[in-house]
């Protein structure tokens, strides 16, 4: 019995030392990467294609830790303050071997169609707050899962803030078939990107009867205002339907996508 007790004692001591060493090294390993600056996050690069805004964030990890890092998942989410998820993006890396390094890019994609389909068009016209969530999960030594997550509230500037149309004069005859109305179309671009595209403005009366339209190219820099005169032509046969108030339908088309919205005028 004495031998078995002694063997058990030695086994217990060796296992304790091994377990304690593994635990300390495994938990220190990711901390070492942070302290040594072996994790680098590049500056975000925005791009537009297929009606989608893509923000690419390059990142670099040099695994100078004691163990492999496996099942690395970088998840980001973009949502509005009411909890509606606009976009969620995931980047996965299967394994970063000890001593190995990776260069990856995490892409956050926000489709204009997603914004429209999720009733988030108010973000186009009202300044608000965007909730950005980020989470990084991985396994150390293929055994210990660790996860770090955070969320940040970022102020959002609307690209078509406070759109309005002000009719300047009563309709005047333009030619034998049309009347013209001078108006001013205005909005502020509070968004971080420039607006450049074709705007089609259709004017309806209170009974939703079509009166006339204006089509023009617009370009508004980020942080700039748009306040330009527009001339709306109304067919002579429809002029009796004009009452000075109603609804304006706006159809804006750019490389970012197509946006439609309506707002009242003459209130």
């Amino acid at each position, binding site marked *: *019995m004495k031998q078995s007790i002694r063997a058990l004692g030695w086994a217990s001591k060796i*296992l304790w030392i091994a*377990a304690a060493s593994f635990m300390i090294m495994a938990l220190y390993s990711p*901390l070492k990467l942070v302290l040594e600056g072996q994790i680098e996050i590049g500056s975000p690069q925005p791009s537009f294609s297929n009606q989608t805004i893509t923000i690419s964030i390059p990142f670099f990890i040099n695994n100078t830790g004691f163990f492999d890092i496996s099942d690395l998942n970088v998840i980001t989410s973009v949502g509005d303050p009411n909890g509606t998820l606009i976009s969620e993006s995931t980047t996965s890396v299967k394994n970063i071997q000890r001593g190995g390094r990776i260069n990856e890019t995490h892409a956050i994609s926000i489709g204009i169609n997603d914004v429209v389909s999720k009733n988030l068009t108010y973000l186009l016209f009202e300044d608000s707050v965007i909730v950005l969530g980020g989470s990084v999960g991985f396994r150390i030594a293929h055994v*210990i899962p660790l996860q*770090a*997550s*955070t969320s*940040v509230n970022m102020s959002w500037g609307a690209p078509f803030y406070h759109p309005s149309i002000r009719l300047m004069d009563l309709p005047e005859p333009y030619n034998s078939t049309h009347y013209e109305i001078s108006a001013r179309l205005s909005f502020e671009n509070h968004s971080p990107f420039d607006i450049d595209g074709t705007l089609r403005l259709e004017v309806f009366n209170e009974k939703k009867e079509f009166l006339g339209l204006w089509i023009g190219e617009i370009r508004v820099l980020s942080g700039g205002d748009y306040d330009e005169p527009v001339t709306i032509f109304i067919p002579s046969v429809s002029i009796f339907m004009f009452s000075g108030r109603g609804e304006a339908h706006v159809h804006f088309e750019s490389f970012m996508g197509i946006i439609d919205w309506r707002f009242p005028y003459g209130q």
Partner: protein
Amino acid sequence: MVNEEDSKPLLKKIILNATRAALKGFIMLLLTYLLPTLIIGALASPDMPFEMPLEYTPLVYIFSAIVVFFTVVTELFSGTILRYAFSVGRALVLMMFFIYALNGGILTSTIQIPGQQLAIQILANLKALLAVLILLNVLGLAKSMLEATNFLARKVETT
């Protein structure tokens, strides 16, 4: 009644046990409290201040206290059956402590980034490590039971 000749080796044994208990207790205090505190202090740098989350600081004291207490009492009662009882007690208390301290294997903590309104939530799944720690304590428990049995068997043989 204990005569003078019998009390001399007993006193010697008590002094020896007390000395050994004090020495082992100090070594354990060094290993379980002073060394981790020094390591954590060494990790901190002006660029990246590192501090143990406040909610875990008392657990380090408690762990150190449990280890030091049981080391001291098992050495003090060396040569008696109480030594093995305390060994069994240590294994049981440590098992309960690990389950409590590691929150059943899921550790969470929030780190506030200094100077920024940014908080990072850290979640660690240490269930595998907790299982290893419990198994090691079960091993210690088994060893203490065997030692106690052996001790009693020897006592019966000598009487």
